[in-house]
């Protein structure tokens, strides 16, 4: 996982970590009943305070995406992937809207914007 926390970003580190985990869970890279990386190992990897990671895990827990199993770790719940996907999609939606707003502000037309999206998605269409 070549994921880095950027402290100079406007997004607080905890949110960056949460978003990253959500995308992992949503994309199926961490499946249901699979254990999330331990707090310490994730903290060591991304170089943040374990407390921060713990807070992220607690947040995911409060959103029902994962569950702590008495001391053995944090595991993805059954509803996890679905909820994660929803969260990711919601984030993407906001990001896309923000980009669209910026593009429109910059003078791009709706067609230009749609064209960009189509071009980006084309290679991903299964032939």
């Amino acid at each position, binding site marked *: 996982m070549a994921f880095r*926390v950027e*402290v*100079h*970003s*406007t*997004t*607080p*580190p*905890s949110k960056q970590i949460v978003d990253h985990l959500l995308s992992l869970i949503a994309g199926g890279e961490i499946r249901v009943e699979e254990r999330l990386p331990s707090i*310490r190992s994730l*903290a*060591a990897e991304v*170089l*943040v*305070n*374990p*407390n921060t990671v*713990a807070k992220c895990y607690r947040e995911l827990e409060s959103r029902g995406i994962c569950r702590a199993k008495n001391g053995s770790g944090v595991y993805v719940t059954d509803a996890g992937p679905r909820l994660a996907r929803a969260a990711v999609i919601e984030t993407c939606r906001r990001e896309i809207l923000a980009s669209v707003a910026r593009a429109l502000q910059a003078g791009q037309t709706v067609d230009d914007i749609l064209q960009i999206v189509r071009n980006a998605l084309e290679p991903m269409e299964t032939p």
Partner: protein
Amino acid sequence: MREIITVRKLMIKRSRQVVLDGVDLDVAHGEVCVLVGRNGAGKTTLFHALLGGLNPKRGLIRVFGKDPVRHQRYVREQIGFVPSIPDVPSEMTFNEIAAFMEPHFPSWSATRLDEMSAWLCVSRGVPFGTLSKGQQMKAMLALALAHDPKLLLLDEPFGGIDPIARKEILEGLIHSIQPMKRAILIATHDLDAAARVADAFLVMKGHGRIHKRMVEDIAEDTRPVTETLLGALKRIQTKESTPCTL
């Protein structure tokens, strides 16, 4: 006791100069606090006061509930200190220094030291003076952690260190964080590292007066933490209208 460090209206003079005046501070168990402030604000002096190496002119310090001057040994046995400039004899090797330090700390564990020094890749058999600054700092960190201190003090651990060593030190630092068990107090200018590890920021103003802000209070959606901190530091400078140096 609830707080691991309590400081009230602390005044410390050195060579007749007032260095700290009216300093208040609380650090809870297991809290990671980052001390930011301009050079000469009194960070190192505060550390020495916490170690019982300076006698307060006024005010009160309690570490682990005890006065560090009167209970110097008790307090020091549970503090790990990484000074900004290593204060160990340069002709001694890491092993010799460890052997020297060990009997002073009842909770010293050679195993722990071995693990930490291996993890940090510290050269153990060469004279300390021949090591690079980064290696020295890593070595000092390993030595400070060998006795499993309840309070870890680091004074400018990233100052003038090469990037690789910096990363290793940061990793070591994060590795040493034990929430609820070990409080850490770091004085640093490295805002990146500060933002990564802090539970709370201690912004040090003139005469060492501290303004404590928890990281969640500082976090705003529109600004990186580092920028907020920088702003806070700049405000200290202008507020106190010290002569501006470029």
